[in-house]
């Protein structure tokens, strides 16, 4: 869905733009009409798999969720047909989960951005090509291991015998990291940093370095050139990276589960609980729908706002 919203509109082939060899054998109008029809066929065929995918695996299940969200929990759990808005009225019962998600997901995105930008900047502009390749590989390497295992490792790093014991040994007092919002935040930033680094790196790498030189020639100090040239030109990457990370963080389940110890609960965790423990599918569906609506609203507003900075038009995913 987000891809659909981001990709540029498909360019329509106008009349008379068909392959020119037709026009050699036929009158001009027929040729272009035929080419038109043919190109429409090709377009349809090419779009069919993704359309099927979209309808069968996104729209249809979503419709089921909408229907379920107005139902009732069956006696032994599950779904029972009904029409009630009770599930939506009960949403405040998950206020804490919504609050955790809506605070920690944006916060995680911002910290990711602050950590990723200098790295991407160094990679794209300051590093020599050979080091750059090496560093880029280092950014990718974590993906070779399962996300679950890497997050699990953080349980030990943040657990009582990990970092806190080092901090204590240094005489900085007793701290607890695991099962706190901070540990969840650390896990989120660690997990999603590469997704922020790459879009920013790409937009910075494409940046014409002569513009920075020109700014310097015209008497701008480095800081000002950065603010007025580099930063605006890297905006598409920043916007894309933030959106990628934010959307994924909003649906996060694993990190709060492992590093939050059941104490820092996201909507994703509340959903798993509702479907796999309390088996209240209708309420679960209502919570899921609310999350979808919140996401749609946030992303729409986000795109509107960021478009103003002249970057929304050519936002690309990478």
């Amino acid at each position, binding site marked *: 869905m987000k891809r659909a919203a981001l990709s540029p509109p498909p360019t329509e082939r106008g009349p008379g733009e068909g392959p020119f060899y037709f026009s050699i054998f036929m009158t001009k109008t027929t040729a272009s009409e035929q080419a038109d029809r043919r190109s429409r066929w090709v377009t349809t065929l090419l779009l069919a798999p993704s359309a099927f995918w979209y309808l069968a695996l996104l729209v249809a299940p979503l419709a089921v969720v909408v229907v379920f969200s107005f139902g009732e929990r069956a006696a032994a*759990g599950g779904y029972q047909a009904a029409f009630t808005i009770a599930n939506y009225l009960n949403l405040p019962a998950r206020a*804490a989960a919504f609050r955790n998600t809506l605070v920690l997901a944006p916060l995680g995105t911002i910290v990711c951005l602050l950590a990723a930008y200098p790295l991407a900047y160094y990679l794209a502009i300051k590093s020599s090509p050979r080091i750059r390749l090496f560093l880029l590989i280092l950014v990718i390497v974590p993906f070779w291991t399962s996300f679950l295992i890497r997050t699990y490792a953080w349980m030990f790093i943040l657990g009582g015998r990990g970092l806190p014991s080092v901090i204590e040994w240094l005489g900085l007092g007793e701290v607890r990291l695991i099962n706190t919002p901070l540990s969840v935040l650390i896990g989120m930033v660690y997990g999603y940093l590469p997704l922020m680094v790459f879009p920013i790196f790409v937009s910075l790498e494409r940046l014409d370095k002569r513009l920075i030189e020109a700014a310097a020639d015209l008497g701008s100090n480095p800081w000002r050139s950065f603010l007025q040239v580099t930063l605006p030109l890297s905006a598409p990457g920043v916007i894309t990276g933030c959106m990628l990370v934010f959307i994924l963080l909003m649906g996060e389940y694993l990190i709060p589960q492992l590093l939050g110890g*059941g104490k820092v*609960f996201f909507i994703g*965790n*509340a959903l798993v*609980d509702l479907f796999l423990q309390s088996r*209240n599918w209708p309420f679960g569906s209502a919570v899921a729908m609310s999350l979808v609506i919140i996401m749609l609203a946030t992303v729409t507003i986000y795109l509107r706002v960021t478009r103003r900075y002249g970057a929304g038009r050519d936002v690309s995913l990478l």
Partner: protein
Amino acid sequence: MDRREFVYHMRRWQKGSISRRQFLGVTGLGIATAVLAKAMPELVAPRAAYAGDLGDRVSLTTWPNYHDPKNFEDFTAKTGVNVEVNVFGSNEEMLAKLQAGGTGWDLFVPTNYTISTYKDLDLIEQLDLSLLPNYDPASIEKRFVAAGTIDGKTYAVSKDWGTTGYAVNTKKITEKMTSWKDFWDLAMGKYTGRGMVHDYQLTTIGNALKYYGYSFNSIDPKELADAEKLLLAAKPHLFAINSDYQPSMRNGDAWLTVCWTGDAKQMHKDLPEIEYVIGKEGGEIWSDFYAIPKGAPHRAAGYALADFLLTPAINAKEVLAHGYPSADARTNKLLPKELLEDPIMYPAAELLAPLEFGAAATLTNPARAEIMARFKSA
């Protein structure tokens, strides 16, 4: 490295400190952990004896730290059937999966209070006892036979039994603890940030109910409201809500936790300072069973595995590994005397007397389900 050596190392890795138990228990996803044999079936050549009838694999759904992996190897060596093990964190989660359908399980381990619901929902089959020659109801304590029998028909056969108390690290906690009131008061007071409760409605709500002296199984709205109040007050003071408490207890992050018999036994063996307490107000006594889900894809192999694990000599090895008492007199005859007198496994009669078996109503009660979910998302 030859095949045998590779299998050996793989096994060690599986049993290592970052074991599948922690992995699956914590994630609570109930993701299948494929035993090596399943991942690489060609490593273990099927034996002719049973292979034709039983197929080459069987899927077992069970609890963390609940079997001797060596027994699975022996089963595979004997029958050529590879055992795939799924580990779950709560009965509610098992029920949710079975209700959703298409689990592919051949054998699973439900707890006493769930069996009547599974039968009513038509999710388990009436057992064909002729396929379980090693099961002998006469040698099993009557009350554990009864929980698996409905209207004179056998739906589940006893695996083992145990209690739900709490474990205390007595090096860190010097107070003498004897009751659930002690547990909650200290977890919310002096030892804030050190207590753990299960991610499981039955025991977490049940033991909060015990704080007030209510029944462990209460579904009375007023009593449940009191329990919820206690849980919400305790939540900020808890270290975690997690049924996989062994790692946190062992590394010293948590000092007290709601705990099952076998986990207490396993931890006490390695760290004698971790002691097991059964609240004097009562709490839970339970028994687990083997049952066959309806439509099991490898039904015959499921029966064969249950029968194998119920063989007294094999079952004795299981007990030695997991530390939960067996209800089978034939198995107990094979166990060392000190194990049969172990106070964790066999608590004193006056502690056992007030314990309650979980009630079927708690499994499907919407109020209990919602209170647990609210407690977790608070």
